[in-house]
């Protein structure tokens, strides 16, 4: 049994899963897809490497740094084959970025849709360090015909499963904030987060942030495979729940929605009457900034503005807090609603789509007050 066969065996898959922190919710043991419980998100503005959610389409690749290369080819005047030391010759940058899986909240789709049934925790914020993708592309001398940059990782498909290949438009690839990261929160990126090199596309749904990058192809066309032409796309118009939508009637999902989730207290918590409860959570908006977050403690009848923490950066979430005195015995529907710098506000009702992408309905928890 070679390494790849072992990686695909039950033992290999379980061993891969065993390397992840045990507190994460296992949505899929293989490939490894783990969700962060909201109480772990509550620990701070930065999500630790161990607590950060994990999304994989294929088994983790086996990576040997001594024979690792990053190829840059296609519509360039000078093809490159970089070693890891070569990548360190570029200027180093660090960006704090909130990544969210496009299917975060899919479990709330009605009727249900296939896919990983993420609830609220396929989101996290980490400090990524690496090099600008644009610097690499400029060294390769991108030709004027280039319109897209196709990224492929070392992860390999099984049988006829399509390879996980994604592309981003050249404008986003050349944006100074789009980067190839080799460190996560100051440490070498763990294998399950994309070691040794991961693309980070700030503000976009996280499937764009391809892991285990080994090949960059500059192209006139976007990637042609399943994960670009069928997956990660949304209908080009609102559709009735349960509608089957032809991929030709869809558009790619790119920049994240405006959204918020409570991280404390937990849904279903019981608190004593008269006690002061800090309602808190995080709100994010992709390429936009969060401008305010409101909460309601009466199922949306009235709203109150929350206080936003000072920790902030472009492309990151903001923590919101609101002090609520539990007024009387009963069970209270508590909601959050974020607004961003583009004027977007979270809806109170969901718009269904066939893959459960972009779910951003106002978050809702139930708090029980006992006398």
């Amino acid at each position, binding site marked *: 049994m070679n390494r790849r066969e072992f990686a*695909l*065996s*039950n*033992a*290999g*898959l*379980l*061993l891969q899963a*065993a390397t992840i922190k*045990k*507190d994460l*919710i*296992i*949505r*899929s*043991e*293989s*490939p490894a897809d783990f*969700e962060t*419980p*909201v*109480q772990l998100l509550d620990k701070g503005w930065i999500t630790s490497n161990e607590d950060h959610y994990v999304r994989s389409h294929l088994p983790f690749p086996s990576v040997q740094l001594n024979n690792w290369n990053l190829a840059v080819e296609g519509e360039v005047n000078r093809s490159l084959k970089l070693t890891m030391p070569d990548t360190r010759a570029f200027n180093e940058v660090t960006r704090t970025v909130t990544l969210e899986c496009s299917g975060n909240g899919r*479990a709330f789709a009605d*009727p*249900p849709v*296939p896919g*990983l*049934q993420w*609830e609220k*925790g396929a989101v996290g914020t980490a400090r990524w360090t690496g090099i600008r993708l644009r610097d690499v592309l400029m060294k390769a001398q991108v030709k004027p015909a280039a319109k897209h940059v196709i990224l492929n990782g070392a992860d390999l498909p*099984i*049988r*006829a*499963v*399509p390879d996980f290949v994604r592309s981003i438009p050249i404008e986003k690839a050349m944006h100074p904030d789009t980067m190839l990261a080799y460190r996560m929160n100051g440490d070498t990126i763990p294998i399950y987060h994309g070691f040794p090199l991961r693309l980070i596309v700030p503000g976009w749904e996280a499937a764009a942030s391809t892991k285990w990058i080994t090949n960059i192809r500059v192209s006139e066309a976007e990637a042609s495979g399943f994960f670009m032409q069928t997956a990660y796309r949304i209908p080009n118009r609102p559709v009735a729940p349960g509608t089957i939508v032809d991929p030709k009637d869809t558009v790619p999902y790119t920049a994240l929605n405006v959204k918020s989730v409570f991280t404390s207290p*937990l*849904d*279903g918590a019981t608190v004593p009457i008269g006690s002061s409860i800090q309602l808190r959570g995080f709100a994010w908006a992709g390429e936009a900034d969060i401008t305010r977050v409101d909460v309601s403690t009466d199922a949306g009848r009235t709203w109150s503005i929350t206080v936003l923490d000072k920790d902030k950066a472009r492309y990151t979430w903001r923590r919101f807090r609101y002090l609520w005195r539990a007024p009387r015995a009963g069970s209270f529907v508590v909601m959050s609603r974020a607004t961003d710098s583009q004027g977007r506000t979270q809806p109170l009702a969901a718009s269904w789509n066939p893959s459960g992408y972009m779910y951003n309905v106002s978050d809702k928890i139930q708090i029980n007050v006992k006398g």
Partner: protein
Amino acid sequence: MSKVNLAIFFLICPLADIACAQGPAAAIVQKMEAACTRVCHGPSLITQQRLDVAGWTREVNKMVGWGADIAGSDREELSRYLAEMFNNTRPRPSSAQAAPEGKAKNVFQTSCLGCHDVTPTARIKADRAGWMRVVERMVNWGAYIPPERKEDLIDYLLTNFAQ
């Protein structure tokens, strides 16, 4: 148990049935294991879905297109079986908040909450022997509980649910 021992254990004891592997469905379940959960992905990817026959048929056909070795004559039966087991009348896969904290929380989430929520578990009043019988019954009904985690799971059930 060391990682090596753990690996050897799972090599000789592959991920077992994700649902009832006895009775009339046994044959189709075994084919599904051979084509799906022993080859490309784990059972959770199946047990968390809540789809009707049409939805499962689309998923089965998609997997066949991706190389799953499911004979044409078995695809309809498999789709019907999956729709019977994992449809929208079943409780939603449980959220993290619903599972109490504890050493075997992950086992409880993976092995139990893929098929039902916390409610039926919370209704059971049992001592250690009673929980052992419940767990054995679930295993007989197809739950996969790693044998070396069974005691942890029973401790977890005893600690977190009414005795």
